[in-house]
């Protein structure tokens, strides 16, 4: 188990002028479970391969604890990567696959057999030991791939989209398995995903990446409550945002003037509010009228699509009221303490 520190890490693929990963500064604590989250092509898998040593950074350094490992070859790095499609060697049995890394280290045969045996037991793969990968289900292959990595007792475990190839019900099971193994072994784990829900469910901390850069780091809560940009809010499913200009504690925008409690500096800003924070009716402060374009009954609550100066906002409210508001103009209020204000940085 060791911490992983990335310093000014950049990587450009040969023949490409645009860097896939740029100036990444990020430290993962010992034993932490961190998610690299972002849309496809954002550089998250590249970052993972840089940590694994499968790619060499164009510039920057990587440290495991105090050791600089930037030039250490992948096979010596003690960071083991599990690929998205498992990549079990097709001509080897599951047992041989799990023992692969130990054999490459030329360990004593008995030691190998013993460790493989223990790992197969932990992963409940004992009955499948003699099978070839093609004879296993997706979930079993995933477990075998994890076993093959964990049997090496790596300092750092790197998982590339560990759940994306699994059915929904298997996904829950595998998530719990990864979590319990990670907790009991305490292995520093970095996993890559494009699915914010997966990151939220599994990670201690999330590092959100766009365009080869880390945009925001933190526990999952802050991405919902304090997104660092309109794009991040939108990535986490919140499109209720509008541009405005802040002066003192007031933001002026195209639908009116709103009182806020933010300490953000004066100037152009984006205002973001969560769908469940918007209130129906005029509550005396920050109220505005909007057309309800659509009302969707969701069982426990209603979801409304409202037109806010051409943009579509979402409002979630209790289903109790029951009235059909579709096509009507209704007044709404934004509680000042629930408004999140993001300063626009010279765009």
């Amino acid at each position, binding site marked *: 188990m060791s911490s992983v520190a990335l310093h000014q890490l950049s990587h450009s693929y040969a023949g490409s002028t645009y860097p896939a990963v740029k100036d990444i500064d990020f430290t993962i604590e010992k034993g932490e479970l961190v998610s690299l989250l972002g849309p496809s092509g954002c550089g998250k898998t590249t970052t993972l391969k840089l940590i694994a040593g499968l790619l060499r950074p164009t510039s920057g350094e990587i440290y495991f604890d105090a050791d600089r490992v930037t030039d250490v070859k992948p096979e010596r790095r*003690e960071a083991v990567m599990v690929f998205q499609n498992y990549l079990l060697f097709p001509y080897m049995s599951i047992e041989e696959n799990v023992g692969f890394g130990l054999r490459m280290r*030329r360990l004593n045969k008995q030691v190998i057999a013993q460790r493989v045996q223990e790992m197969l037991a*932990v992963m409940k793969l004992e009955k499948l030991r003699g099978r070839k990968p093609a004879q296993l289900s997706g979930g079993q292959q995933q477990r075998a791939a994890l076993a093959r990595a964990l049997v090496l*007792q790596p300092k750092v475990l790197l998982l590339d989209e560990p759940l994306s190839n699994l059915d929904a019900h298997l996904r829950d099971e595998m998530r719990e398995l990864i979590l*319990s*193994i990670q907790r009991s072994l305490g292995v520093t784990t970095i996993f890559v995903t494009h699915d914010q829900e997966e990151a939220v469910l599994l990670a201690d901390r999330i590092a959100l990446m766009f365009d080869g850069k880390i945009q925001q780091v933190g526990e999952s809560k802050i991405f919902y409550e304090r997104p660092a940009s309109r794009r991040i809010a939108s990535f986490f499913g919140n499109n209720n945002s509008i541009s405005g200009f802040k002066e003192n504690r007031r933001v002026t925008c195209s639908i009116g003037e709103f009182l806020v409690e933010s300490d953000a500096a004066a100037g152009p800003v984006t205002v973001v509010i969560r769908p469940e924070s918007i209130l129906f009716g005029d509550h005396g402060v920050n109220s505005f009228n909007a057309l309800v374009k659509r009302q969707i009954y969701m069982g426990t609550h209603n979801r409304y699509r409202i037109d806010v100066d051409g943009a579509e906002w979402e409002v979630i409210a209790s289903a109790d009221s029951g009235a059909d508001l579709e096509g009507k103009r209704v007044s709404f209020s934004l509680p000042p303490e629930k408004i999140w204000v993001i300063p626009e940085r010279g765009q």
Partner: protein
Amino acid sequence: MIGLRRFPSWDRREVKGCPACFQVIHVAVIVAIVLGVLLPVIPLLVWSFSHSWFFPEILPMELSGRAWTYIGSPLSKVANALINSLIIGAVVTASAAVLGIPAGRALGLNRFRGKTLVEFLILAPIIVPGLAVIMGIHVLFIRLGLVDTLFGVVLVHLLPSLPYMIMVMSGVFANYNVEFEQQAYSLGAGRIRTFVHVTLPAILPGIVTGSLFVFLISWSQYILTVLIGGGRVITLPVLLFAFAAAGDNAVTTALCIVFLAPAILILLFTSRYLSGESGAMGGFGRL
């Protein structure tokens, strides 16, 4: 849930490695490829222009265009042989494509009972030595009056070449998604349009690769042509063999170059299909 015992950390025995070695080997292999390919070609070029060139001279003592003049003259029958070779090669290639593309499609896209047997039959002509077969065919063709004819030669050339076309095409079709065709039909394209606009572009690399193999097999075929053509159907390899056995180096090498030229031309057009991303060569691994 985990009862995993801690191991003493990272007890790997040192494994020797040598990063610089791989770099050196890499460069050495590239140099070896270039040298290895060019070495046997160099004497061909030089000899064809030499008049007298005795050991131990590294370059010819006297240059001359004699061999080339001779090859160009009607006396040598080279023009005649060239035309024969081209006609036979073209007809064999076209026939192999017409026969081989449907067969390759049937094998690449389908599983059916007896498929292994069919594959074995198709491969058999290139696994089972041709000599045994050709001597039998010779007798058959004598009876059918096909010996000494261009048609007979075309037929026997199909024997070693058709399997290659089928193999390449079955490899291509194994990676081919028929649903594109079904999509085209459902969008209102007829059979012919679908073939031209959907199927053909997808399998073209395979057709090019397969045709290249077929043409080259026919183009360089000696023994089948000699036995079935009976010395009447003169192709370039037949002429070349005669000159090579007679030992006139200048004329032999000049003829070699004539023999090489069309092949190089074809390769210029097809090179990208051979090593490119298209799976055309992959067909050989699948059967």
